[in-house]
């Protein structure tokens, strides 16, 4: 197969998944592969590479595939963005639980209290003296995400209905495809109807996020504003 045919095969596979890489990325990708690799494997590898890449350098941009310029305009009560727009997750928060309770849970995990055979029960249901404004231990979110498009614009997204694949175990750098998404006051309202989770990761971002997570929760609980926010 000629290299241009190969490129178009790869490209159409990726496009079928909603990902539209720019020619540079495709060229670089192909040059890094040995010619003997079968096409099917090559398609798989391309998809994994692309979901693990930073979309601000890997994807094609068109007016439809990125957020409109005035996406943050908070005076717009509601509008619909058709897309499809590929975004990557830069941050994720569980807003159904207090930050402090999330921090306590992380610390218990670090102390090994959730390891099998070494569990320590710290709260027995029904025994705690009532304080009804405590966050539930188990939470389904909702989650609030910071999502970035290929142009580098970051926007908040909030689950208004649980979306499978969206959760605290998600990698930073995961890719989502948004279609016909409602935007209210500059915030994307996420629901299964308008979100496809492709997965993926951006290793460096994920590592930093993990490392800073406890610190972020601690500062957040104390309402000390983070040094830099989205946008």
């Amino acid at each position: 197969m000629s290299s241009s045919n190969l490129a178009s095969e790869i490209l159409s596979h990726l496009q079928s998944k909603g990902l539209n890489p720019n020619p540079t990325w495709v060229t670089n990708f192909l040059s890094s592969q040995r010619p003997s690799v079968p096409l099917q494997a090559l398609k798989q590898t391309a998809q994994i590479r692309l979901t693990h890449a930073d979309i601000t350098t890997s994807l094609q941009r068109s007016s439809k595939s990125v957020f409109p310029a005035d996406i943050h305009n908070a005076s717009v009560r509601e509008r619909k963005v058709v897309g499809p727009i590929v975004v990557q997750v830069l941050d994720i928060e569980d807003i159904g639980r207090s930050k402090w309770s999330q921090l306590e849970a992380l610390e218990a995990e670090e102390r090994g209290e959730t390891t099998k055979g070494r569990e320590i029960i710290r709260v027995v249901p029904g025994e705690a003296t009532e304080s009804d404004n405590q966050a539930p231990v188990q939470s389904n979110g909702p989650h609030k995400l910071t999502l970035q498009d290929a142009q580098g614009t970051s926007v908040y997204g909030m689950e208004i209905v649980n979306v499978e694949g969206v959760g605290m175990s998600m990698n930073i750098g995961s890719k989502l495809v948004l279609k016909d998404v409602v935007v209210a006051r500059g915030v994307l309202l996420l629901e299964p109807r308008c979100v496809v989770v492709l997965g993926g990761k951006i290793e460096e971002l994920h590592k930093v996020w993990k490392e800073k997570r406890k610190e972020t929760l601690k500062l957040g609980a104390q309402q000390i504003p983070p040094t830099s926010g989205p946008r």
Partner: protein
Amino acid sequence: MVTRILCVAEKPSIAKAVANHLAGGAVTIRHVPQNQFTKNYCFDYNFQPPWGASSVTFTSVLGHIMKHDFPSQYSWSNCNPRDLFDAPIDTFVEERNKTVAKNIEQQARHSDILYIWTDCDREGEHIGAEIRDLAKKVNPRIQVKRAQFNNIERAHVIQAARRPIELDERQAEAVSTRMEIDLRTGAAFSRILTNHLKPMIRDVQELKVISYGSCQFPTLGFVVDRYFRVRNFVPEPFWSIKVMHNKEGIKVNFNWKRVHLFDRMAVTILYERCLQAKTAKVIKTQKRPTSKWRPLPLTTVELQKMGSRFLRMDSQKVMKIAEDLYTKGWISYPRTETDQFDKGMDLKALVQRQTQNNIWGPFAQNLIAGAFQWPKSGRNNDKAHPPIHPVNYTNPSTLSDEESRVYSFVVRRFLACCSSDAVGELTTVEIEYGSEIFSASGLTVIARNYLDVYPYDKWESSQQLPVFATGETFVPTEAKMSEGKTSAPGYLTEPELIALMDANGIGTDATMAEHIAKIKERNYVMTRSQGGGSNNGNQEFIPTTLGVALIEGYENLQFATSLSKPFLRKELEVQMRAICAGTATRRDVVHNSIEQYRDVYNRSERGMDTLKAAVRNYVLGQTNG
């Protein structure tokens, strides 16, 4: 020839009560020389064949007879504490029990049969084995039997006397195992901690020893953990949406399904979308029968928890009172894990006895007249004792105030168990408003049933809901966004601590109260009334600076089997059960356990600077440096 039988109970009160039941009054009381507590009750009794007509001496011990300790060359100043893991152990009659032991020996010499009447639990089995050993030493031919009983009611005692069984060697072994491990680890750790830490705090706190116990440390660990959770707590704001609709003159409050969220922006947007939607739509209406379940049969852990919650007594006090009631024959044996009644028990007869009471009598009468239901069964059965239940009726006004409270609780709980669940009807209405779901519910209690005799549970009818139809739409009278704040958990209370010990396998139901009392006595924790207020509420536990230093010191050493954590102890409890079941031997369990503790000891010795730093920090108030 008349058979001579020596019966031995665990304490004098039981000997007296059982002897009187068997003898029917014709008892000769003989004093035991130099012992003011123990008496020998002598009478004739006709046992089942082959014993037949017998001459009986019924005496008692005062709990455990033997003491275990290291020989004098292992005294405090003479050895390295680590040697105690392997040191020989001497077993001898404890000084205060010398007259008791002598009495047993004297009586055993002239008896054909030793009939053991210690309490039917592990400790009782072990005490029984001690009595057996004393008797066999002076009279190797003496035959040994054991009575199986779990209350001191006359008919039950007479039944038990007819059916002697064998002593359970495994249970006795399990207790010896635990005693040996507790002795070695307790002594080794108490000595190393005292040697290193006591001199540091001499000026601020006077202490004989800094004592270690394998149950007390993890128990203290729970108190310290909660203390820090309270102290470090940071309150956080949250936001909520409240919807109220006035229908047919009733103000119906709808609760947000998300309860509240910790993000103002998110709630603001959702709230705006509610308002924007204008109308709410009823998406579900439901009217269904509901019930509040009657309680499970009463276990020791449950009695202790309820005691501190409703009877204004700490767990140790409740157990003491319950034991007195048991000794007097009013209630069954109060140390049990069982929460299911054996199908063969005549519970109705027990209910019948309560009909004479002027408060709950009518309720009991009603059960007898047909409302009786067999109690629900829980999941636990220790195969030794039934759940705690009233045995005989006594008018509570003839008891002391505290006894009366515990007795009344046991009776009410039992009658509640034999009654029916409370029945009600629950109406729920769910609405969709914007993208959000809200719901309102109303409860009507139709039949209170067990609640009538059991005031410790609360279940009341709520406001009634007007009729809503599915699909109906309306513009809510009011929709508000509100703000709140999380609040810190409370310090640990006794019922919570007992529940945590139970859930994490620390101590047995019978010993939990002792461990809690120990950490108070040793100055590791203090108690005060909840919220620091008047003293009729729950007691809450606050660690002392020394308590915090010990736990934090061990936490800072950062190893999984830390003494501040429950694992080592939990494992030992599991091993003890294995010995009882015959799947493990004392030798193996002692060996494995001691090796684990030796490892912890080595780590403690190497990490002594960390432990000292914690003491400097918390007890002496010096920051690290």
